C-alpha cells in the first residue's frame, strides 16, 4: 500500500557524496557548538571577574541550541519520524528565539565591551605617563639633594684648596665619574694649568693655551657643554687601550675678584677669568650624560664660584688685617723710640745746661773778685774781656752778698784750702742760682757743742783742731723738707728744683758732701718750705796753727796736694787676712783702687806698672819678704814705671829701716796705720817719691 506516510522521505539524491559532507560538517559544527560554551564556562569560572554573566548564559544557550539544531539535523538526513521533525522544529524555533534575543542583547553590549578596551588602553597610557613623571621628579629630587649636599660641603670651608678638592670628590662620587679635573688660569691669563684632579695624586704640570676653540666654546656659555674626549683638556691620562672613552662634559667656573664685585650686576658682566671643570664618564660603559646631570654640574659650578669668592674675600681681609697689625707694631716701636730719644735729649740738655752754667758762675764770681784786687791796666783789661765774654750768656742777677765772721775764729788755720773753696763756691753758687731776689748771707763761726747741730754729731774740739761752721742763707725758692735727703745724692732731681732753669742738684752737692766728710765734717740743708728760702750749713775740722807759714817736715802737711786719691791703683800684700782687710778699707776710704794679694809669689804675679804703690807687710818673723822688693826692682827696669814700695811693719827701729832702705823700699809705715797717717804718707810719697817717717 502506498500510503501517505507521515514520514518525510528525504530526497535521497543521487549525489550521496554531498550528503555525506554535509552530514560530517553538521556533526563537527555541533561538536564545536557544544564545546564553545563549555570552554566559555570553564574560563569564566576561572576568572572571577566578568560582568556579563547573563550575556554569557544567553550566548551559551544560543550556541547550545544551535548545536542541538545541527545535531538533530543529523537525523534528518535519513528517514526520520515525525517526532524527530518535531524536535527539530522545536529546537530551531528555540534557537531562533534565543539567537534573536542574543542579537538584540549584543547590540547593547558590544559598544560597552569596546569601550572597556579603549578605557583600558587609556589607563595604560596614563599609567605610563605618570611613571615617567614620577621618574623625572625622583631624579630631580635626587639632583636637588646632591646639589644641596655638594653646596654644603663646598661652602662649609673657606679654604680655597679644600673647596676645589671637595667639589671634585663629591662630583665624582655623585655622578660616578671616571675622572674629574679642574683647570685654573695662570697668572698671565694666557694658559690654563691643570690644578686639581680627582684620581691622580700628583697632577702633571700641564698647561694648555687658553685660546683653544673647545675652551672658547665652553667659556662662552654658562651651560655645561659636551666636548670630545680627545680634546686636549680631556686627555689627562695616557689612553690605555680603552675601546670607548666615556663622554666628557666641561663647564666654566667664574673666578670672581674683589674688584669685580658690583652690587647691581652680578657677576656675568664683570668677570673675565674662568676656570674649566672637566668631567668624564667611565669608559667602556654605555652611560650618557643626562640632562639632570648637566644641570647638576652647572649648579655646582656656580656654587663653587660663590664659595671661591667668599674664600677670596676672607683671604683679602685677613691680609689687610695682618698688614694693619704689622703697621701698628711698627708705629708703636717708632713712637717708643721717639719717646726715648726725646727723653734722652731732655736729660742730656738738662745736665749739659747745668754743668755748663755752674763753672760759668764760678768763673764770673772769681773774675769779679779778681777785678776787686790790684791789677795792672793790662790785667784789668784781660779780666774785663773775660767777664764780658761770659756775662751775656749767664743770667745777671743783683744779689747782695754779706759776709759775717765770728770774732773767735782763729787767724790762721790748717786745712785743704782748694777743696774748702770749692765747697763754698758750690753752696754759694746754689744759693745764687735759686734766688731771684733778696740777699745772701755767708756766716763763718766756730762750732760749739751747744750750737744747734744735728743731734748725731758730737763735736769735741781738741787743742789743735777746731770745727769751722759756715752758714749760707738765701731768700730764694726754698726746698720742700721732704726733698732735702735727696739733695746730696748724685743726679737726683726734684720737681721743685727741676723747674728752675733746668738746674738740678747734679754732682755739686754730692761732691761737696764728700769733701766735707773727708774733712771729718758734716753738711746739711735746712728749709722751711717752698718759697721760704734755704740755709746750707757745713762743719769742717781744721787745724789751728800759730804761725802763718809752716816750716820743717810736718806730720800733717799744710797743703796736702793729693787729698783726693781717686782711682789711684795700689796693691796690698799681707798674709794676715784681718790686717789686709783693714789696710784695704783704709785705702778704699781714701779713694784708691785696691788690689790685694796674700803671698809674695802672688804679688809678683799680679803687680803691674798700673799700680802706683805696693804696700807689703813685712811683720812675719823669719820670712824675708824684703826679697820681693828686689824682685820688683828687677821686674820694672824703668824707674817711672816701677810702683813705689812701702813696708808695713810692727816696729820701726833703726835696723828695720836700714834693712828696708837696703832692699830698695821707698818707705816704712808702722802698723796699725791711722787714716790721717795714711793720707799724709800717700800724698808725701806721691809728691816726693820717698818717705821715711820720723819716729
Amino acid at each position, binding site marked *: 500500500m502506498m500510503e501517505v506516510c507521515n514520514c518525510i522521505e528525504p530526497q535521497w539524491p543521487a549525489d550521496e557524496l554531498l550528503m555525506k559532507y554535509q552530514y560530517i560538517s553538521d556533526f563537527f559544527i555541533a561538536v564545536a557548538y557544544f564545546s564553545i560554551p563549555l570552554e566559555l564556562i570553564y574560563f569564566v569560572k576561572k576568572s572571577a571577574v566578568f560582568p556579563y554573566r547573563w550575556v554569557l548564559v544567553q550566548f551559551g544557550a544560543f550556541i547550545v541550541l544551535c548545536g542541538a539544531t545541527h545535531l538533530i539535523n543529523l537525523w534528518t538526513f535519513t528517514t526520520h519520524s515525525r517526532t524527530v521533525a518535531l524536535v527539530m522544529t522545536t529546537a530551531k524555533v528555540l534557537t531562533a528565539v534565543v539567537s534573536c534575543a542574543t542579537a538584540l542583547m549584543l547590540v547593547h553590549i558590544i559598544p560597552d565591551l569596546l569601550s572597556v578596551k579603549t578605557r583600558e588602553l587609556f589607563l595604560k597610557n596614563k599609567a605610563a605617563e605618570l611613571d615617567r613623571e614620577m621618574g623625572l621628579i625622583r631624579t630631580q629630587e635626587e639632583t636637588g639633594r646632591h646639589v644641596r649636599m655638594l653646596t654644603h660641603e663646598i661652602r662649609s670651608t673657606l679654604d680655597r684648596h679644600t673647596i676645589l678638592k671637595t667639589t671634585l670628590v663629591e662630583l665624582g662620587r655623585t655622578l660616578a665619574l671616571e675622572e674629574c679635573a679642574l683647570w685654573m688660569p695662570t697668572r698671565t691669563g694666557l694658559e690654563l694649568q691643570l690644578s686639581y684632579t680627582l684620581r691622580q695624586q700628583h697632577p702633571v704640570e700641564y698647561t694648555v693655551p687658553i685660546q683653544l676653540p673647545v675652551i672658547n666654546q665652553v667659556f662662552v656659555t654658562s651651560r655645561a657643554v659636551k666636548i670630545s674626549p680627545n680634546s686636549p683638556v680631556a686627555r689627562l691620562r695616557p689612553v690605555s687601550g680603552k675601546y670607548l672613552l666615556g663622554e666628557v662634559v666641561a663647564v666654566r667656573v667664574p673666578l670672581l675678584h674683589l674688584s669685580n664685585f658690583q652690587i647691581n650686576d652680578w657677576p656675568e658682566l664683570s668677570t673675565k677669568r674662568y676656570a674649566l671643570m672637566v668631567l668624564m664618564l667611565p669608559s667602556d660603559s654605555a652611560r650618557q650624560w643626562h640632562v639632570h646631570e648637566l644641570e647638576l654640574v652647572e649648579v655646582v659650578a656656580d656654587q663653587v664660584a660663590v664659595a671661591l669668592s667668599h674664600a677670596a674675600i676672607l683671604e683679602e681681609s685677613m691680609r689687610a688685617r695682618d698688614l694693619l697689625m704689622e703697621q701698628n707694631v711698627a708705629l708703636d716701636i717708632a713712637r717708643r723710640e721717639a719717646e726715648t730719644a726725646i727723653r734722652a735729649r731732655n736729660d742730656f740738655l738738662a745736665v749739659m745746661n747745668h754743668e755748663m752754667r755752674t763753672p760759668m758762675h764760678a768763673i764770673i764770681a772769681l773774675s769779679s773778685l779778681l777785678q776787686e784786687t790790684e791789677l795792672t791796666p793790662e790785667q784789668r783789661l784781660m779780666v774785663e774781656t773775660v767777664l764780658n765774654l761770659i756775662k751775656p750768656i749767664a743770667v745777671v742777677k743783683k744779689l747782695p752778698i754779706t759776709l759775717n765772721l765770728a770774732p773767735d775764729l782763729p787767724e790762721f788755720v790748717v786745712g785743704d784750702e782748694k777743696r774748702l773753696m770749692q765747697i763754698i763756691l758750690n753752696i754759694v753758687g746754689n744759693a745764687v742760682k735759686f734766688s731771684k731776689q733778696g740777699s745772701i748771707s755767708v756766716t763763718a763761726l766756730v762750732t760749739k757743742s751747744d750750737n744747734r747741730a*744735728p*743731734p*748725731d*754729731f*758730737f763735736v*769735741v774740739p781738741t787743742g789743735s783742731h777746731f770745727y769751722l761752721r759756715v752758714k749760707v742763707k738765701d731768700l730764694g725758692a726754698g726746698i720742700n723738707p721732704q726733698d732735702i735727703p735727696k739733695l746730696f745724692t748724685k743726679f737726683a732731681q726734684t720737681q721743685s728744683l727741676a723747674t728752675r732753669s733746668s738746674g738740678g742738684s747734679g754732682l755739686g752737692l754730692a761732691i761737696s758732701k764728700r769733701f766735707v*766728710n773727708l774733712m*771729718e765734717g758734716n753738711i746739711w740743708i735746712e728749709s722751711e718750705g717752698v718759697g721760704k728760702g734755704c740755709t746750707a750749713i757745713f762743719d769742717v775740722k781744721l787745724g789751728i796753727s800759730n804761725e802763718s807759714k809752716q816750716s820743717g817736715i810736718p806730720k800733717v802737711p799744710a797743703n796736702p796736694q793729693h787729698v783726693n786719691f781717686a782711682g789711684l791703683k795700689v796693691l796690698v800684700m799681707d*798674709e*794676715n*787676712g*784681718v*790686717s789686709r*782687710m*783693714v*789696710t784695704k*778699707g*783704709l785705702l*778704699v*776710704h781714701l779713694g784708691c783702687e785696691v788690689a790685694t794679694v796674700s803671698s809674695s809669689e802672688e804679688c809678683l804675679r799680679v803687680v803691674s806698672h798700673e799700680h802706683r804703690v805696693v804696700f807689703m*807687710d813685712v*811683720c*812675719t*818673723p823669719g820670712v824675708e819678704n824684703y826679697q820681693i822688693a828686689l824682685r820688683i826692682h828687677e821686674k820694672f827696669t824703668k824707674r817711672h814705671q816701677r810702683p813705689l814700695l812701702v813696708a808695713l811693719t*810692727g816696729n820701726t827701729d833703726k835696723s828695720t829701716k836700714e834693712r828696708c832702705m837696703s832692699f830698695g823700699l821707698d818707705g816704712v809705715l808702722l*802698723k*796699725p*796705720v*791711722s*787714716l790721717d797717717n795714711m793720707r799724709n804718707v800717700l800724698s808725701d810719697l806721691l809728691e816726693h817719691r820717698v818717705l821715711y817717717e820720723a819716729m
Partner: protein
Amino acid sequence: MDTLVAQLQRQFRDYTISLYHQGFLDDQFTELKKLQDECSPDFVAEVVSLFFEDCEKLIGNMARALDQTGNVDFSLVGSSVHQLKGSSSSVGAKRVKGLCVTFKECCDSQSFEGCVRCLQQVDIEYKSLKAKLQDLFNLEQQIVQAGGRIPQVDI
C-alpha cells in the same frame, strides 16, 4: 723728757766710752770706724767678724799644737800667736793684743804651762770682747730701728 732715740744714743755713747776706758778697745778701733761710710756701710762689722773667725781658727790651731804632749811645736804656736797679735792690733783689740805679747814670750821660752795659761786667757778674752761688741752692734741696730742716727763718739 728724753725720747727713746736720745736714750739709746746716750746708752751707746756711754757703753762705747766704757769699752775704751776698760781697755777693750783702743785708737785703732776708732780708726776703723772712720773707714765706714756710704760705700762700705758695714765695714767695721765685717772686719770684726773676720777677726773673730781668725781668732777661733788660730786658737784651735794652737790648742791642737799644745795637745801634742811631749812633742809641742812651739814655732807653730809662735807663728799663730804672731798672726793673732797682728790681727788684734789691726782691729784695736787692745787686751787681746797685750795677751799676745805675753804669749809670744812664753812661746819663745818654750814654757808649756805658760803657753797653756796664755791660751786660756786669750780664749776668754776674745770671747768676752766678742760679746761686748755684739752688744754694741745691737745698740746700733736699735737706734737705727728707732729712727735715729748712730752718734759719732770721739774719745
